[in-house]
């Protein structure tokens, strides 16, 4: 029953988000955040490797990207990809979502941000060690 309800909600939410995006109306980003939250809830009901579960995991990351919430998309992808049961193919599908959703410049900016974050973390570790 829970899945049935979530499927109904996510169908409505996708319809709303894509409609707002298509017409350029305000609220599309928040609507995609709601899609991402619902997809995440659906994903929790299925193990990694399950067809419906993997569909929902892709959906959670895809909707976060469409919402412009790169931090959430990154966290979700990291969580799903780090699952020991995740196949190489599934990890590649998640990575491909970034290229689909973001233009090259935005992708580079995100990569740069990650590199800065990583470099800062490494520096902090070095300072702590010293």
């Amino acid at each position, binding site marked *: 029953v829970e899945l049935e309800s979530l*499927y*109904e909600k*996510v*169908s409505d939410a*996708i*319809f709303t988000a*894509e*409609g707002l995006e*298509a*017409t350029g109306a305000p609220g599309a980003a928040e609507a995609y955040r709601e*899609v991402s939250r619902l997809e995440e809830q659906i994903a929790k009901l299925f193990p990694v490797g399950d*067809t*419906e579960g993997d*569909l929902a995991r*892709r*959906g959670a990351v*895809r*909707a976060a990207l*469409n919402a412009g919430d790169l931090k959430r998309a990154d966290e979700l992808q990291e969580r799903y990809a780090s699952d020991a049961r995740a196949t190489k193919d599934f990890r590649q599908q998640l990575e491909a*979502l970034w290229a*689909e*959703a973001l233009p090259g410049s935005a992708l580079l900016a995100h990569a740069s941000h990650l590199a800065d974050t990583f470099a800062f973390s490494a520096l902090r570790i070095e300072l702590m060690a010293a």
Partner: protein
Amino acid sequence: VDYHRVTEEAAEGIALALVSSGCNWIVLRRLQRGEVADWLLRGSNGALVALEVSGLDAPDNGRRLREKLAQVHKARFDVKAACLVVLAKPQASLSLQEGDV
């Protein structure tokens, strides 16, 4: 009114009604744009069905249906299907008044 969207939504409504009544498939959920199909359904034998739907104003000799089948073929579900709904029925009217032909 976004004419393209209206056409697609009308096609989706008709397609879902068709597969529901004609194939006994149960609609599970809509898929996000970017997936290789529009809808996920469950067949009467429990199989997962990926359904791609398209709407046209006029027949195109099956070109669009072939394109959609090729698109949905990439889906990793038990059954891949495409449904093309032609919304405008071709109609020709000929009216003759009295006279020589």
